[in-house]
């Protein structure tokens, strides 16, 4: 696996901030950030159902493996040199349910979080 495509929501301030942070991080696997439901996303993944990508962070490998929600977050960490160790810790059966809960909370409330944190446009 040489690269991962991250489908992110550009209308959410928190997501844009995370995108900036990701761009600064040293990577073991290349990360390409593509806005959700954009022409580029539809062009690159013609067979993908793009509706759920707006609810959950979606990561797709260059070989077509799709990861949603908590697994997508774990995959993003796995791509980063400083956090690869954490991706294995969070992916264990003991921690993955907690990650799922936290991730879905953040995803559902991302606009409110952005507003409260002053990241909204």
């Amino acid at each position, binding site marked *: 696996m040489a690269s991962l495509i991250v489908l992110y929501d550009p209308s959410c301030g928190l997501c844009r901030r995370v995108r900036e942070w990701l761009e600064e991080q040293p990577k073991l696997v290349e990360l390409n950030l593509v806005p959700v439901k954009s022409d580029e996303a539809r*062009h690159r993944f*013609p067979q993908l159902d793009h509706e759920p990508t707006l609810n959950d962070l979606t990561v797709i490998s*260059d070989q077509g493996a799709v990861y949603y929600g908590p*697994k997508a977050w774990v995959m993003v960490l*796995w791509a980063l040199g400083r956090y690869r160790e954490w991706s294995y810790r969070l992916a264990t059966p003991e921690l993955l349910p907690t990650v799922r809960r936290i991730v879905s909370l953040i995803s559902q409330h991302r606009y409110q979080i952005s507003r409260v944190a002053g990241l909204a446009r």
Partner: protein
Amino acid sequence: MSVEIITYLIYLAISIALTIWVAHTLHKNGRVFLVDVFHGNEQLADSVNHLLVVGFYLINLGYVSLALKLGYNLASAQEGIEALSVKVGMVLIVLGGMHFFNLFIFSRMRRRATLRHAPPPVMPDAFTAVREA
């Protein structure tokens, strides 16, 4: 020769011999680890190994030298042996601490190196066709 001088000389002999022995062990057995970490690059492994051992010698001999002074007079051979035992014990503990610290560095380097090539931690949820950008 006074008891103090004899104690000092024995202390130095034991401490230096111990340091050499531990450094030698580290040098001999650490190499395998390092060769693995550097993916068979033996030249680099030997270089890092040597640098680590030099640091090990400097810190240990520095401690041995700093801890030499007794600060009081010894009245008998018994007191000499007791003082020697305390000093050598301290040197052993410092050597042990340094040794474990080195092992920790080796294992961390090795873990980092294996992580670099480790497969993804989770299985994909689905598969989809990918078109080139």
